[in-house]
């Protein structure tokens, strides 16, 4: 079986989609029938690492538009059993290679009409909510799959607070709420504002750690100051990936009353460190918390709902990795990918 995957970023890339794509590629490559997986990125921000055997990574396609067009053109001469299109914007390119590419969709990329002219052969969505929103405008009637993020449970663990980070952020004797994410003005859907507003009504020893960088940071700083919370809302700015588990282990509660998450992978990371989590009932967070089984779902438009959930988890205390988190383990992710491959192959045979 020879497989093609067109992606935005993957090896050497940052963020949730790059990680998802790496897991996806690894799962495909691990299939016993997979002879070769060709991966074509749109961007390669850093030195690519961790490329599995059987993967041919066409890094040169990311050099510029011309190089990308050339790479796509060259691939048209090859024969693939399955073509995956890793972003809705790449669908026109995927369609030049296959009449029935399987499209991967994640979140806001697929929530509004886009590339309506180009129909995929199948759709793999990171969550039910994204799939529902895509189907509502696309009139797509073919095969669909839900493939939620994977969490590599071995990379995370419950650990004591790192004294260096405690000192750096002034967290000694504090109870810590944490949100990890980009702080982008154009995407005010993570719920930072909502948590800051709730903090006013929480005990003084509770602080809010916002981990991430972005252009909306000055506004949030001003907002915190205006509410008299300058010393209780702490911004880490950009942080190295290697610090991530230690960062989660600083938290007593992970809270993300968001509106625009396709899935909410950070919720899995927090829970993998035993941090009790609060997510949104109105976006992919609902699925990351398995409908409330793994954590508390809140209405992001209700300050009271958010506050009571925080109160409840702070009062409950303690850290525990929820047993149900295993649902998102990488082995489970891999078997989901394999069954998707089987179904797609069966369909092609028909």
């Amino acid at each position, binding site marked *: 079986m020879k497989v093609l995957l067109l992606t935005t970023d993957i090896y050497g890339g940052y963020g949730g989609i790059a990680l998802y794509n790496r897991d996806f590629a690894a799962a495909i490559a691990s299939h016993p029938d997979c002879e070769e997986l060709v991966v074509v990125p749109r961007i390669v921000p850093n030195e690519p690492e961790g490329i599995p055997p059987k993967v041919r990574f066409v890094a040169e396609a990311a050099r510029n538009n011309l190089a990308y067009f050339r790479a796509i053109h060259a691939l048209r001469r090859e024969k693939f059993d399955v073509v995956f299109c890793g972003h809705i914007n790449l669908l026109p390119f995927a369609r030049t290679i296959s009449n029935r590419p399987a499209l991967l969709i994640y979140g*806001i990329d697929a*929530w*509004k*009409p886009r590339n309506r002219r180009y129909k995929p052969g199948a759709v793999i969505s990171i969550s039910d909510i994204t799939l*529902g*929103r895509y189907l*509502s*405008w696309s009139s797509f009637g073919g095969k669909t799959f839900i493939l939620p993020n994977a969490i590599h449970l071995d990379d995370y663990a419950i650990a004591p607070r790192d004294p260096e980070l405690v000192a750096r952020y002034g967290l000694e004797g504090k109870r810590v709420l944490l949100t990890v994410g980009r702080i982008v003005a154009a*995407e*005010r*859907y993570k719920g930072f504002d909502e948590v800051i507003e709730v903090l006013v009504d929480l005990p003084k020893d509770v602080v809010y750690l916002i981990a991430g960088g972005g252009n909306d940071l000055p506004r949030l700083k001003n907002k915190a100051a205006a509410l008299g919370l300058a010393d209780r809302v702490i911004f880490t700015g950009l942080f190295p990936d290697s610090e991530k588990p230690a960062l989660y282990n600083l938290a007593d509660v992970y809270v993300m009353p968001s*509106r*625009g998450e396709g899935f909410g992978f950070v919720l899995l990371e927090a829970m993998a460190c035993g941090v009790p989590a609060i997510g949104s009932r*109105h976006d992919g967070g609902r699925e990351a918390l398995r409908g*409330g*089984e793994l954590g*508390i*779902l809140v*209405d992001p*438009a*209700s300050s*009271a*709902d958010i506050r*009571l959930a925080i*109160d*409840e988890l702070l009062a*409950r205390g303690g850290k525990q990795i929820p047993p149900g988190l295993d649902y998102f383990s990488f082995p489970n992710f891999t078997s989901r990918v394999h069954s998707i491959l089987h179904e797609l192959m069966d369909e092609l045979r028909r």
Partner: protein
Amino acid sequence: MCGIAALFAYDDDASPIRREELEAINERMRPRGPDAGGTWISDDGRVGLASRRLAIIDLSPEGDQPLTDTSGELVIVFNGEIYNHRELRARLERGGARFHSSSDTEVLLQLYRAHGADMVELLRGMFAFCIWDKTRKRMFVARDPYGIKPLYFADDGQTIRIASTVKALLAGGAVSRTIDPAGVAGFFLTGTVPEPFTIFESIRAVEAGTAFFIDADGRGKARAHYSIAKVFQRGCSQHAFVTLVPPAMQLCEFVSESLRYHLVSDVPVGAFLSAGIDSTGLVALAKQPMRTVTMSFDAFAGGTSDESRIAERFAAEMHCVHTTRVVTRDEFTRDLPRFFDAMDQPTIDGVNTWFVSKATAEQGLKVAISGIGGDELFGSYPSFTTLPRIVRGMSLARKVPGGVQAARAALAMTKRSPKAPAVTRYGATWGGAYLAQRGLYMPWELPMPADAAEEGLKRLEFFERAEELLEPDPSSAFGRVATLEATLYMRNQLLRDTDWASMAHSLEVRTPLVDAWLLRQLAPLLTNEGSASKQYFADSPKPALPDYVRNRPKTGFVVPLIDWAQLEPDGTGTRMRSWAKRVMETFQ
């Protein structure tokens, strides 16, 4: 869904409560809960709770009320439905709580134990309840955000009496029947009695969206747990989300979610079906063939006011089991005494809900969903365009010398309505403009003795209260009108009438478009899109609502009252003023 009552002799000098009074109150509410009834009186005889039950969730005796928790410290009577009770139960269980029934009533007790008064913030549903907290010797009383479920009290300074209906409180025999001029003035002004007043001086409504404690010192200050004005204000600052998802999709998701919750039941749920977008939209979004009921009057057969043809066609396309129930003049005349007896407070509305509820109950249904609230939510009343115009125009006229006189002269030439002078007199404020547009009588023409009218108006403080309802400022014209429509018309008339007129037939009416959680989600979209939202709602089911529904001229629900009730001419086309006088006579 039930009728509930509570008596609490909180003052040391108060006599213990009387079982006969509690039972008399409860008996008056029997139609609200024909399936079971019960009373509970504390060992010291200071507190009594009673309930009539219409069993809908957990049909077993485990769900009977009054319900005591396992520790015996908390006792509850509860009227309504908690639609998110299953998820709250699961959350409480994860926190260590243990349950003994599958009823939503028990969830309330555990939630109170876990969160105290804040518990009301977590409830999605319609509710009115009283929890007796034996340890703290206090009673917690709460009512839902919109005021879907009623709750009234009479507090004589020593004993407080609480019940689901005004007439039940009177039936106990200990509450004065003295008519309140403020209630009468409010009724003639608006066609219903505005909260917190009732038609009786000694009875007040527990205001919608509030909760309070009662202890040895009496009734504590009511705390608002929901404000429609605040939701709209907040919605205005959350426009960023509006752009993430197309409007029709947002409506589809959020209304479908509300609908899903409103279909939670252990008995079959039917639907009122008219020819309008709201009820057809709900039936389409339900994605399951429902049992639907349409009511028509034989006097309108085949005319533009007859919705039955369109409803039948739509129901057939949706594969619904449909019933069209025709009401005749004879039936109307026969039902009128029962109708007035069931009417809990004077209102000029309720006839339509009475008959459609009767028709639905005849089908063996205990629960039906209704599209009421859609016009208030989506801004499809004319007031959404006229009120902003009146306020803008009159505010401007007041700034220009001679502007008010010019406006008055212009209105006198173009409008012959007796209400026309109200536009120039009150139109510069939102509450004033609302009254000028929606009022039945104007303050200077109330059909009651002059001194009573003066006293009533003074205590009623209609304009001041309307301005209070708009605190904090909803930040947009749409939000202001929507807030007034929801808190004046819908709360005081539409929802209240729906409650007594349906409960008289032992039918629970559920309102997926009147949902505090839904409004929170939609507020950013509504303030952004205004009245266009209704068309987006029509687009939200797949397939979208058919043209014969969406392009039908808006008629409202009309009852052939003029002929059937033989109403005298009263200077208005609908003769509603005559009807109001007839209604008022039944309360005096």
